[in-house]
């Protein structure tokens, strides 16, 4: 197994995206305190596509995703070295306000996390936050429709968001995230807390959403990545330095990564030899 940083850099460089790159993540190091969590990984996110992040647990795929809209800033000991450009602007630049970053780059989390307010208010939250002056009802309806939830909740918009089932709550959270029409939608294992039927619905939803938005998806489920992702980034764990440091092993077309991986590590992972 060849797992030196140089090798990782080489493989990452091999992937050259064809489409327009909306976000380009050139990360050097991510630290939690003294702990080096992720190193040298280049992950370009293409417009209008779903980029899947896969890899064994502890490989830092969620950490990388969360640094794309500076969610990790909530953790005191988090430190990011490198550059993430969003349409040419480095979102880790000195003058950048992380709050504004998150308005353009939305996020759906592992656990459905609706606010304890009505379904309507949940979806309208971002609109009101951005002082949206237009027709809120219309926007809410459209977001719920796009999240494939409208038919189930249209008669009970005043009910608490927490009264819905797990799968419905997750779609509510997606509706909440897309109501403000963010450019990029980051999804951190959005189906891990859901049953197979709800998972199916969310996956179909993702395929529809990519018509309008750019998606990045972390998943622990390889089948899910195969089903929905256009591009797949495979992260591995390097335990050679004594710690557990994640890094990008290989990135490419999903079909390529799964059927004809360039790296031995990738081949072993997609063949299910470790997880």
């Amino acid at each position, binding site marked *: 197994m060849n797992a030196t940083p140089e090798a990782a850099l080489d493989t990452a460089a091999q992937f050259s995206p064809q489409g327009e790159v909306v976000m*380009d993540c050139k990360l050097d190091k991510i630290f939690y305190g003294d702990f080096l969590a992720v190193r040298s990984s280049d992950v370009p996110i293409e417009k209008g596509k779903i980029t899947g992040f896969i890899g064994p647990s502890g490989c830092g795929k969620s950490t990388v995703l969360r640094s794309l809209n500076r969610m990790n800033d909530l953790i005191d000991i988090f430190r990011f070295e490198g550059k993430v*450009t*969003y*349409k*040419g*602007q480095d979102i880790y630049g000195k*003058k950048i*306000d992380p709050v*504004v970053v998150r308005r*353009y780059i939305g996020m759906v989390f592992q656990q459905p996390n609706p606010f304890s307010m009505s379904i309507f208010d949940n979806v309208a939250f971002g609109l009101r936050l951005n002082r949206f002056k237009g027709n809120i009802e219309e926007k809410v309806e459209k977001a719920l429709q796009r999240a494939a939830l409208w038919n189930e909740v249209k008669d009970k918009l005043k009910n608490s968001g927490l009264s819905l089932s797990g799968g419905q709550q997750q779609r509510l959270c997606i509706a909440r995230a897309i109501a403000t029409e963010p450019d990029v939608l980051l999804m951190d294992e959005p189906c891990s807390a859901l049953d197979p039927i709800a998972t199916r619905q969310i996956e179909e939803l993702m395929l529809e959403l990519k018509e309008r938005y750019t998606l990045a998806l972390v998943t622990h489920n390889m089948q899910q990545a195969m089903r929905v992702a256009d591009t797949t980034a495979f992260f591995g764990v390097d335990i050679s330095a004594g710690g557990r440091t994640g890094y990008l092993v290989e990135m490419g077309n999903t079909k390529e990564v799964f059927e004809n991986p360039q790296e031995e590590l990738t081949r072993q992972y997609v063949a299910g030899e470790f997880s």
Partner: protein
Amino acid sequence: MSNAELTAAAQESELPSLNRQILERRALKSGLLTTLTWIAAILASIPLFSVIYMLVVQGGARVDLEALTALPPAGFEMGGGFGNAIVGTLVMVGIAAIVSVPLGILAAIYLAILDPSSKIASLSRFLAKVLTGMPSILAGVFAYAAVVLLMGTYSAWAGGIALAVLMLPTVVLTAEEALKMVPQRMKDAAFGMGCTRSQVIWKVVLPTGLPGVVTGVMLAVAGAAGESAPLLFTALFSNYYISELAEPTASLSILIYNFSGMPFDNQIELAWAASLVLVLIVLVFNILARLFGQPKV
């Protein structure tokens, strides 16, 4: 795609700036609110520091052996102290603890383990919560009606019972919480070995939950030691050391109350000194509560 192209693409899509804007309304509002919150936190701690300062400076100046042992001075008398009040407070808190602690823990055992969801358990749990919200002076009114009128005299008994009424709900509720924290697997293990329910409680639940129970008791004692309203017309006051439990009894808090309104500097100084001693007694029990409350393992 080169960097220049990327920048051009950004300009094309009319991307609003992601930059921080310090003078924006939102930022101003945030700054203002943060400042206000800091001011509120600082303002709120001023009274505490002021009280501590007064206790140490005014009270500390008069706390000496005489103050701790002598009897309260009358009118224009100089010197004197509050030895009898310290003893009285401890005696009445002791009576209250002896009455309320066993009863409270037994009730907590019933509420937490024996039959937590029965009607009687939920009723007494509810009433215990209501009792914690009862004004302390009403405990005094009750003890006056139930003990003073019965015995025909103000007494340490009446004061102790008034304090016991205040302590009981605290003991019950904190002990119940502590006993409920004992993991089910420990109880299962004991039941699995053929213990009767009371054996499970005595041998497993009580020893395991003891730190939490003791914490609750200490907090209740600390609260009772600082109470004065329930003692006003149950124990009344006395200028002498206590010789029997069935006579009016001095306490630190009533001494402070009585002396605070007097036009004599000597008494006011003694009131501050007594306050310092009272706060220290309350603090000792609070610290004990924390020490016992340290989770083991």
